[in-house]
């Protein structure tokens, strides 16, 4: 850890000498460690000390971006010079108005000492417990357990000076027999909250319950999607639809539908980077404080998230959802929540005459028809047939091909309990999901296991 004072003072010194009209620096750095296991042994065990410093130089309406992974002053200066030279040789960007000005952001506790100091030996100790518990049933274990400590700072020539130290830890467990598997995971900023034995129990039980799976013909089934499966779908909905860019380019399923009812009344989705119940992070990578953005309220399309450039285009204010200066896919919702319902997974199972319980999905692709949010993907690590209110047996995995607008219009109920699920941006984001009961979910293919 370099520390707030050194990062801010160094970036300030470098930016002070900038010849650009406006200059921004973003620092992301720290130490990430990950222990990976398979066949109940640790087979990869890694640690990385790294940083990345981005400079965005503005000349009129021209923007140049350059980065380095060295915090040495001469390297920082060279990166800034590169950004400035690019800006001078750029074309004007009509959507650019100004870099953001200073705003106050919420004070949030995102750094936990126990996570920062967690050692390879401690990670090994934890995963050995999982191996031991699984071996009692002759099951093998795969997965990964990561811990990280990092710092993020955003500094610009208009007075923005944001800094946040953070830690993060994620564990995932796949327990396997010769013909079945089970899954569990946990995402937290505080590693002491990870209860590996309980997590192992969940994955072990799923693996045992789905042993000797039976084949099932594709077709429409009522499904109970556990939170990880729901998050797998939301992750893609976010990518193709919740950001300003696909919205403005009309490829999003939300484009031209704001104010219209697009899914069931029971579905409300929003983004809230300040909600400390999840993986909160209080500002975006332009230094704009995170705003709560309702995307779908009681089934009605409400809005999308913006960074400063895309906000200027729609003449609205940034909602604080910019990523790094070199990221060209625009604003992304990083802290998504689906409102809880009143039900529970157990009640949903009881109500199911004939349907499926899905633990998680694999290899979803949401590019088939983005305006209709048509996705395909496979089930994995614990898919079960439910009949007459009871889980009957595990089934071999199925492929779904389904419009998410149709699926979320067919929501029967949501659970009261919600889970924090990791997303593509696990250090600064997550998806908080209930279990969801959906009728007539379309499966179009099957596989051999």
């Amino acid at each position, binding site marked *: 850890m370099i520390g707030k004072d050194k990062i801010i003072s160094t970036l300030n010194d470098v930016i002070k000498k900038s010849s650009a009209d406006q200059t921004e620096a973003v620092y992301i750095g720290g130490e990430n460690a990950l222990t990976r296991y*398979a066949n109940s042994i*640790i087979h990869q065990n890694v640690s990385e*000390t790294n940083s990345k410093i981005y400079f965005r130089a503005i000349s009129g309406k021209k923007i140049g971006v350059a980065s380095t992974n060295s915090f040495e002053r001469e390297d920082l200066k060279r990166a800034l010079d590169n950004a400035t030279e690019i800006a001078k040789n750029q074309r004007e960007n009509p959507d650019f108005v100004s870099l953001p000005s200073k705003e106050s952001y919420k004070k949030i506790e995102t750094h936990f000492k126990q996570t920062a100091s967690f050692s*390879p030996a401690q990670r090994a100790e934890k995963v050995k417990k999982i191996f031991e518990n699984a071996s009692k049933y002759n099951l093998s274990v795969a997965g990964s357990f990561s811990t990280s400590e990092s710092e993020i700072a955003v500094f610009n020539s208009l007075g923005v000076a944001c800094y946040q130290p953070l830690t993060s830890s994620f564990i995932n467990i796949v327990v396997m027999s010769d013909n079945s598997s089970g899954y569990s995971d946990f995402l937290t900023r505080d590693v002491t909250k990870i209860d590996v034995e309980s997590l192992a129990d969940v994955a072990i039980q799923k693996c045992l319950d789905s042993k000797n799976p039976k084949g099932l013909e594709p077709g429409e089934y009522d499904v109970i999607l556990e939170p990880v499966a729901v998050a797998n779908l939301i992750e893609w909905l976010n990518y193709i639809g919740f950001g300003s860019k696909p919205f403005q*380019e009309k490829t999003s399923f939300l484009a031209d539908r704001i104010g219209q009812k697009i899914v069931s009344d029971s579905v409300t989705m929003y983004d809230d980077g300040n909600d400390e119940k999840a993986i909160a992070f209080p500002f975006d990578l332009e230094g704009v404080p995170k705003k709560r953005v309702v995307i779908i309220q009681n089934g009605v399309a409400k809005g999308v998230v913006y960074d400063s450039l895309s906000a200027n285009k729609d003449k609205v204010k940034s909602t604080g959802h910019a990523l790094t200066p*070199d990221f060209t896919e625009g604003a992304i919702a990083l802290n998504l929540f689906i409102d809880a319902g009143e039900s529970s997974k157990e009640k949903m199972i009881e109500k199911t005459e004939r349907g499926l319980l899905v633990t998680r999905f694999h*290899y*979803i692709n949401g*590019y088939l028809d983005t305006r209709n949010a048509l996705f395909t993907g496979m089930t994995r690590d614990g898919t079960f047939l439910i009949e007459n209110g009871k889980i009957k047996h595990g089934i071999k995995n199925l492929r779904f091909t389904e419009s998410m607008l149709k699926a979320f219009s067919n929501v029967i109920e949501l659970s009261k309990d919600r889970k924090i699920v990791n997303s593509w941006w696990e250090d600064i984001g997550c998806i908080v999901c209930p279990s969801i009961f959906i009728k007539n979910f379309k499966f179009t293919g099957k596989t051999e296991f």
Partner: protein
Amino acid sequence: MEDKIKATMDYLRKKKVDYGDIRHQKKLIESIKVKNRNVEAISRSEDQGFGIRVVVSGAWGFAASSITTEAEMKRVANRAIQIAKASATTKKENVVLSEEEALVDQYLSFCQIDPFTVSLDKKVELLLNATQILLKSDKIKVAEGSMDFYKTEKIFCSTEGAYITQAVLESGAGIFATAVEKSEVQRRSYPNSHRGDFATRGYEFIEEMKLLENAEKVREEAIQLLSADPCPDITTTIVISGSQMALQVHESCGHPTELDRVLGTEISLAGGSFLTLDKLNKLEYGSDKVSITADATIPGGLGTFGYDDEGVKAQRVFLVKDGLFAGYLTSRETAKVLNQKSNGTMRADGWNRIPLIRMTNINLEPGEWDLDDLIADTKEGIFMDMNKSWSIDDKRLNFQFGTEIAWEIKDGKLGKVYKNPVYTGMTPEFWNSCDAVCNKKFWRVWGVPNCGKGEPMQIMHVAHGASPTRFRNIKVGVSK
């Protein structure tokens, strides 16, 4: 740097590690993205650091840092040893590596025009002019062009005595048109989707693409798709273009032949493989028309290099020969399981990542057909071109791939355009239904710059040689 690396290597030897290697890597990246008459982004990135991999007490440890002082190298070496000792607490057997010659050598990729010497203005101008052609219809709502260039310098040094330096240049570009009308959105790309085409070549590769000359066709096909019929839901003959065959080979042969995946080490993320050890030299993976090679020596291929990140020389091997499953992609550790030598496919996407088994240039070897003859020989079917969506199960059996565009084939001729084409199948059944592969004239290597694998995620540059290929009795149009 050489002195610091050799001093750290001496330190590892003093620490009596079973095995150790250091990789130092320096990378320069330039990216340009143009959209709707504007230059959306130009960025340059510099990245350097080193990673130390050790076997201690029979288990692996790896640590890496972007700070390249001698003191930091020593700290990181100790960290790697500490990590290996933690790994060893769960080991069942010691890590054993295949015997390989410790080589001292250097490798330079071939390039006529260093893209970093070409002015930004020239590159931007080409992309703006190409997208200008795309925008000649108001139905094109998004016209994009992009270029990416990479310059990578690597040093590999091992306790066994290897010392290898490599310098590789990579270039890539593409143009993309998105047509929108009411609730219909359609996209065409050139020369390929997913950021275009890439090669270990210089700016001459971009010039040879002829982006300007192809822009009009891209625009018109995107517009044509807006009013096209949807791909029918039928079981039929399909002819798949070379670029889509690249994706087919990637997902259904490249990944399942990675021996680390087969041995279970990717289970938690991307899954395993149906190509289990008992199937080697026994499984009829495809028809006798199907031969697939891994060839890291093809000049200009995006998966071409001199040595992998274990210091093993680049090779050409068969994965499938005349339909028979004949080999895996291997590393020094996994090759030992088969009592073989490594075929040199261990690569890391940077200094800060541990090497994994990665595809090189994985190629469906050319057949004998001219494309015109193949279409003429097809009474009824669908011709599918360029990847749009991709999904495959976690043992690489059930797949469903979508393409940007398709054409009906009727009585040996291409007919009307279909939108949203999708085909699906089970891998061995699918490859066994292959009855014709086009010849060398239609065969080319497609660069894929976005192959994901591993935790932490690593994005690798790989490639696939392929030509248009025909398959019988394939289920298409399951997207309704």
